């Protein structure tokens, strides 16, 4: 019999994904190493096992041991501690390695093999100590011993700290759970400082503080080392319990069952409350009224009857569909409450008529009730509420009488409401109804005799009625109560001066002096006294009194001197109808040299910022003589902030010429500052009405910069100015319809003057028009305007003007051929037309 040769056994190899044996072990090794490096430990284990079948090379054994260690760690990371320990054991067997390792010990413990873990610890204590791992192992053993790990303590040496300190730790736990605070303290003191139970001490203390001192509890938890067994789950649960309610609720969801149960116990929540919590945790902050109402309805037993009814009722505002559910769950609301809620609902909707009607129904309902102080107060409050809506945005003069009647009626019901008196006094006074204002002043004074607000209102009302003596009487009373009240002095000063002006204009100098003497009594500042002296000086000048000049000069100095003092003088002069230049000369103050400085302008600007709006009408006349130094000072060395303040003032006071000058000068120092670009283009636009393409471009760039810098004010202003470019429909200042154009042009020219008009056209037309203007010359342009102004046709005017030019200047033609010019009505070539280049008419 022939012996059959044994064929090599065909191995059936299962290839795992990623491992392809290429034939040679060295390729498989590289692949397996790669798997290990990539953390694919299962693949690496399989790979190394395959390799080891071909021989037990040291590097493959090393690789396998690493792969097993990695796999065990992966499982431990998923809290699969039993599995992790099993893998470790396989590692020891496969690689012929010792079993003991601190990681393995912890996995045994956390996997429930307490006795084995304790035995391992005991047998390898020296090794663990050498590796610095004994303390950590003891802490974990201690924690499980406390938690009731079976067989753990029996496997330990009785002198081991885990066993030695176990009694004290357990006693502390029992004391805490029994609510024995002194006992707890005593037992915790028995636990030594370096005991493996030391972090349990922190944990237990923090449990005790959760209710009374949550911040203290959290601080204690922070002292637990991160690798302590108490650091994770147990500390997290206590931390959640220590949080304020909203955060506690959201974090509670993230805990595991035991952790949630611990928090529930610590908080003392009932089963019903836990159900409520689970229900509420699905609702996000900012949830709609419907969801909240449903939540309240489902758990109304927890909330307290009164609270929940009110809370649920308030949810109906904005959710009127919830009424049926509300009535079903909480019973019908009393009529007054239902009407009140309806009115609040209407307020939310915003229809003023509906709001008034709804509150009127509330009023009707209150009126039906028996009289009581509360009922009257409520009615007064509702009347004031209705009145608030009626009065919103209304000017005092145009207020509907009913709105005032409601306020007045509210005082009949509730006569002790001071703010309503003051409101009525102001509304009547500003509306010109002085008799009614005085009536309420009297009524308010009767009730609130020494109230400063009432007395001030009385002063203002008396002045409005020209009852100056009365005003003075009230003012003196007020100043007795409030000696430094600046408002009343200011009001009386103004009133006295007003009287003074009246008498001066009427030529009653004795009475004027009397009024000025009265004003002096109210002047609380040097500037105020200066103003009075200026008026005295003007009065003296009218009377031909030689002392006028000295008075005027004194007044100017007292009012601030320099440009500011002179402006004050000019304002007073303007009020009295005097000619500004004449006054300056009469006062010997016409010399303005040296006033074109930064300091003078800043002082002037500060003063102008405080000027009352009603005085602004005199500003044009008053400022004209001072234009010279003001314009000259445009290039002074202001800071950027000062420049903006000055420009802002010119803007507010509509001084576009000065604004253009100052902004232009500032842009030379701070080119492209968005606010300055805005000021300049705004000023230009005020003059030209339209924005040129160049201006739009500059503003667009400034807008971008302003947005980058977060300058919202400038951004908003530029957007408004650009208007049409930003999608806002343009407002055509010259709504063009062919027949009106000539009239509009003539009108514009007449208003602006020839040179200015041409400047505008140049601004709009750009380089092209500049060239045309150069070609035409200003004289021809003026001629054109004369023809237009006398009602001539635009084309006719142009033909006449351009035809008079003769041959165009060199470079004026654009090279287009003649012959395309108009031929005139007769059909024959018109010599006047033929002689000029039609391109010259492109602008028109």
């Amino acid at each position, binding site marked *: 019999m022939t012996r059959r040769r044994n064929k090599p056994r065909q191995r059936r190899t299962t290839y795992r994904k990623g491992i392809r044996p290429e034939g040679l072990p060295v390729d498989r090794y590289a692949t397996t190493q790669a798997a290990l490096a990539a953390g694919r430990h299962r693949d690496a284990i399989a790979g190394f096992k395959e390799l080891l079948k071909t021989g037990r090379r040291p590097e493959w054994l090393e690789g396998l041991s690493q792969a097993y260690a990695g796999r065990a760690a992966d499982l431990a990371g998923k809290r699969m501690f039993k599995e992790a320990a099993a893998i470790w054991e396989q590692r020891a067997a496969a690689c012929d390695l010792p079993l003991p390792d601190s990681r393995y010990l912890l996995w045994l413990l956390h996997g429930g093999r307490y006795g084995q873990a304790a035995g391992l610890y005991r047998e390898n204590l020296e090794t663990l100590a050498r590796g610095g791992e004994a303390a950590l192992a003891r802490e974990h053993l201690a924690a499980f011993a406390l938690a009731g790990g079976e067989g753990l303590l029996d496997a330990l040496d009785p002198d081991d700290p885990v066993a030695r300190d176990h009694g004290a730790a357990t006693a502390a736990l029992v004391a805490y759970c029994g609510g024995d605070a002194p006992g707890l303290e005593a037992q915790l003191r028995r636990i030594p400082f370096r005991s493996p139970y030391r972090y349990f001490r922190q944990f237990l203390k923090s449990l005790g503080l959760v209710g009374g001192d949550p911040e203290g509890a959290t601080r204690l938890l922070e002292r637990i080392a991160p690798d302590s067994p108490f*650091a994770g789950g147990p500390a997290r649960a206590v931390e959640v319990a220590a949080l304020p309610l*909203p955060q506690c609720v959201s974090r509670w969801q993230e805990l595991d069952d035991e952790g949630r149960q611990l928090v529930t116990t610590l908080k003392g929540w009932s089963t019903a409350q836990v159900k409520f919590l689970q229900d509420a945790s699905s609702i996000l902050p900012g949830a709609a009224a419907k969801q909240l109402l449903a939540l309240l309805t489902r758990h109304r037993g927890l909330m307290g009857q009164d609270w929940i009814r009110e809370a649920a009722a308030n949810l109906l505002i904005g959710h009127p569909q919830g009424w049926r559910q509300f009535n079903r769950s909480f019973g019908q609301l009393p009529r007054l409450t239902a009407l009140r809620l309806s009115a609040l609902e209407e307020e939310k909707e915003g229809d003023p008529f509906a709001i008034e009607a709804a509150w009127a129904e509330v009023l009707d309902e209150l009126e039906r009730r028996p009289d009581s102080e509360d009922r009257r107060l409520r009615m007064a409050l509702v009347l004031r509420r209705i009145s608030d809506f009626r009065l919103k945005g209304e000017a005092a003069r145009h207020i509907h009488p009913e709105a005032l009647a409601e306020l007045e009626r509210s005082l009949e019901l509730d006569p002790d409401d001071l703010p309503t008196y003051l409101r009525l006094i102001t509304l009547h006074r500003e509306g010109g109804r002085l008799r009614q204002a005085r009536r309420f002043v009297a009524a308010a004074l009767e009730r609130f005799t020494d109230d400063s607000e009432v007395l001030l209102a009385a002063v203002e009302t008396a002045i409005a009625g020209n009852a100056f003596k009365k005003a003075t009487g009230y003012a003196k009373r007020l100043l007795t109560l409030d000696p430094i009240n600046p408002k009343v002095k200011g009001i009386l000063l103004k009133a006295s001066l007003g009287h003074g002006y009246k008498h001066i204009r009427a030529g009653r100098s004795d009475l004027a002096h009397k009024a000025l003497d009265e004003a002096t009594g109210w002047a609380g500042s040097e500037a105020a006294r200066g103003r009075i002296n200026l008026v005295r000086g003007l009065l003296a000048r009218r009377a031909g009194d030689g002392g006028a000049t000295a008075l005027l000069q004194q007044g100017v100095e007292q009012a601030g001197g320099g440009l500011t003092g002179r402006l004050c003088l000019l304002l007073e002069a303007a009020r009295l109808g005097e000619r500004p230049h004449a006054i300056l000369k009469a006062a010997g103050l016409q010399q303005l040299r040296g006033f074109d400085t930064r300091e003078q302008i800043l002082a002037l600007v500060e003063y102008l910022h405080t000027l009352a709006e009603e005085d602004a009408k005199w500003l044009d006349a008053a400022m004209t003589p001072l234009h010279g130094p003001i314009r000259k000072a445009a290039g002074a060395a202001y800071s950027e902030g000062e420049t903006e303040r000055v420009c802002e003032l010119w803007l507010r006071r509509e001084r576009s010429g000065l604004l253009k000058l100052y902004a232009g000068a500032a842009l030379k120092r701070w080119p492209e500052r968005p606010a300055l670009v805005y000021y300049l283009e705004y000023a230009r636009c005020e003059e030209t009405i339209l924005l040129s393409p160049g201006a739009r471009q500059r503003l667009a760039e400034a807008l971008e910069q302003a947005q980058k810098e977060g300058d919202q004010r400038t951004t908003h202003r530029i957007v408004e100015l650009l208007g049409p470019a930003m999608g806002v429909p343009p407002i055509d200042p010259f709504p063009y319809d062919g027949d009106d154009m000539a009239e509009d042009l003539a009108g514009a020219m007449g208003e602006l003057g020839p040179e200015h008009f041409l400047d505008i056209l140049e601004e709009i037309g750009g380089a092209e028009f500049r060239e045309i203007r150069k070609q035409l010359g200003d004289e021809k342009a003026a001629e054109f305007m004369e023809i237009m102004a006398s009602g001539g046709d635009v084309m006719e005017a142009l033909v006449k003007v351009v035809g008079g030019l003769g041959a165009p200047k060199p470079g004026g033609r654009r090279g287009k051929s003649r012959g395309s010019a108009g031929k005139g009505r007769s059909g024959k070539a018109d010599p006047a037309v033929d002689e000029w280049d039609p391109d010259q008419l492109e602008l028109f």
Partner: protein
Amino acid sequence: MPNPYQTLGVPPGAGDADIHRAYLVKVRESPPERDPQAFQAVRRAYEAIKTRRLRLAYELFNGEPPVLDEILARGLRSASPGRPDEEQLRRVLLATLTCPAPATTGPKKE
């Protein structure tokens, strides 16, 4: 604004004197220099209901619906915090004691 009566810890029918007293107590508990936010809340609550007129105005015009936090606080208010018994505490510990992640996954030097 949270319910001012709750903030001050007074019942809805409280009078001027009670409300003022409660306000002083709360201010002592949360003085402005120590807890400015709480103080502001107490101050706002007091200003909302310190007189009869203001209380009636609050009653008439308060339409502020409760927010979720307020509802939670109301629903979860407890008579007294509790404490776990021994069995529960040991059970919690057993379930939640944490195993630290190893520093290295490779074997240590033997």
